[in-house]
C-alpha cells in the first residue's frame, strides 16, 4: 500500500470481497463505493427496457375527457416505476452475490467485485422499493403502486429466491416480473387495467423464455457449474432449442392479437407480422442449426430478441400516429 501526502493508508479498492467478511471490512467496502456503483445495482440495461415498455403502456392508455394524465405526473410515474424495477434488480444482486461471483458474465457486478457491500445493496434495494411504491401511490394512484409492489416482490422473492435455484421453469414463471411494466404504466395513466396492457404483458411473458434461453445456451457452462437449473442445464440443448421455437410461435400469436382484436391498426398488423416472422425464422434456424453454428445462432437470436421487443412496442404508438 502506498502512502499519500497525509500519511493515511490507501486501500486497494479491488481486493476485499463484500461477502463473509468482518464489520470493519464491510464498512470499508461501503465507503469505497461510488455513486456509479450504486447505479449499476439498478441494472440500468434492464431498466431501459422497463422504462420503454412502461412509457408505451402510458402512451397507449386512453386520455379520457380530462385530457389524460398531466406530463409532470406521467414523468414522475415513469421515474418511480423505473426506480422500483431498479430496486428489485439491487435485491436480486444482493441475494445472488454468491453465484454472480462465480459467473463470467456477472463477476464484475458491484457486490462480487467488492465495490459495494451486501448489506449496503440490501438497504439500498429495500429503501428504493418502499420509497418508489409509496411515492407512486401518493403522487399517482394506488393501483399502479400495488402492481409495482407486486412486480418487485415477484422478481426479488418469487423469481430470485424461490424459482431461480430450484426449477427449470424459473425464467418462464419469473418472466411475469418483466412483463408487468406496461400494465403498471397503463394503470398509472388511467387508474385501471384493460385488454391491451394485458396483451402487452402476454407478449413480454412469452418473449422472455426464448430471449433468455438463447443467452443461457451460450452461458450453459457457467449455469451448470453453479447448479442453476436453467433449461439448457436441465433439459439439454436440443430440448431447449425446441422450446425456444415453441415459445416463439406462441409469442408471435400474442403479438398479432392486438391487431386481430381491434386494439391496433393495419400498420401494427403488418409491422408485427414481419418482426415476428423474423423472430420465428431465427428460432427455427437455431433449432435446426448444426453444432458448429449453434453459438452464432443463439447469439443472433438473443440480439434480435432485444431489438424485436423495442421495435414491436414502438409499433404501438407508431400505429396510433399513422392511424391506418
Amino acid at each position, binding site marked *: 500500500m502506498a502512502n*499519500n*501526502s*497525509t500519511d*493515511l*493508508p*490507501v*486501500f*486497494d*479498492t479491488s*481486493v*476485499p*470481497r463484500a461477502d*463473509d*467478511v*468482518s464489520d*470493519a*471490512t464491510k*464498512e*470499508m467496502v461501503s*465507503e*469505497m*463505493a*461510488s*455513486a456509479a456503483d*450504486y447505479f449499476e445495482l439498478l441494472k440500468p440495461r434492464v431498466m431501459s427496457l422497463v422504462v420503454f415498455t412502461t412509457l408505451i403502456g402510458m402512451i397507449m392508455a386512453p386520455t379520457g375527457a380530462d385530457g389524460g394524465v*398531466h406530463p*409532470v*405526473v406521467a*414523468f*414522475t410515474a415513469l*421515474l418511480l416505476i423505473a426506480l422500483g424495477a431498479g430496486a428489485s434488480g439491487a435485491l436480486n444482486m444482493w441475494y445472488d452475490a454468491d453465484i454472480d461471483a462465480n459467473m463470467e458474465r456477472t463477476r464484475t457486478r458491484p457486490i462480487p467485485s467488492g465495490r459495494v457491500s451486501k448489506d449496503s445493496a440490501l438497504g439500498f434495494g429495500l429503501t428504493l422499493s418502499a420509497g418508489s411504491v409509496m*411515492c407512486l401511490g401518493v*403522487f399517482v394512484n394506488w393501483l399502479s403502486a400495488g402492481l409495482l409492489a407486486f412486480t418487485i416482490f415477484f422478481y426479488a422473492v418469487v423469481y430470485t429466491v424461490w424459482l431461480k435455484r430450484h426449477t427449470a421453469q424459473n425464467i418462464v414463471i419469473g418472466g411475469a416480473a418483466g412483463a408487468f411494466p406496461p400494465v403498471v404504466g397503463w394503470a398509472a395513466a388511467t387508474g385501471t387495467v384493460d385488454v391491451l396492457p394485458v396483451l402487452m404483458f402476454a407478449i413480454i411473458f412469452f418473449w422472455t423464455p426464448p430471449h433468455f434461453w438463447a443467452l443461457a445456451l451460450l452461458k450453459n457452462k457457467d449455469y451448470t457449474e453453479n447448479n442453476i437449473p436453467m433449461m439448457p442445464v436441465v433439459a439439454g440443448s436440443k430440448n431447449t432449442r425446441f422450446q425456444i421455437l415453441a415459445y416463439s410461435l406462441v409469442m408471435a400469436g400474442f403479438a398479432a392479437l392486438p391487431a386481430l382484436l381491434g386494439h391496433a391498426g393495419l400498420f401494427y398488423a403488418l409491422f408485427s407480422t414481419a418482426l415476428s416472422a423474423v423472430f420465428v425464422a431465427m428460432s427455427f434456424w437455431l433449432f435446426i442449426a448444426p453444432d458448429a453454428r449453434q453459438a452464432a445462432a443463439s447469439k443472433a437470436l438473443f440480439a434480435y430478441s432485444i431489438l424485436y421487443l423495442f421495435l414491436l412496442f414502438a409499433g404501438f404508438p407508431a400505429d396510433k400516429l399513422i392511424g391506418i
Partner: protein
Amino acid sequence: MKEEFEGTPEWSDELLARRRKRAAVMGWVLAGFVVLFFLVTVVKLGSNIVQRAL
C-alpha cells in the same frame, strides 16, 4: 484468500473524495425529488382547485 481490514478503518484522501462525491450525488438526487414532488403537488392541487364546487 480474502484480505480483511482490522479495527477502525482510517480515511484516505481517496475514500474521503468518494464519500464527498456520493454525498453530492445524493444531495442532487434528493433536491431533484423535492422539486419534482413540489411540481406534482402543484399540478394535482391545481386541477382540484379548478374543479372545486363554487
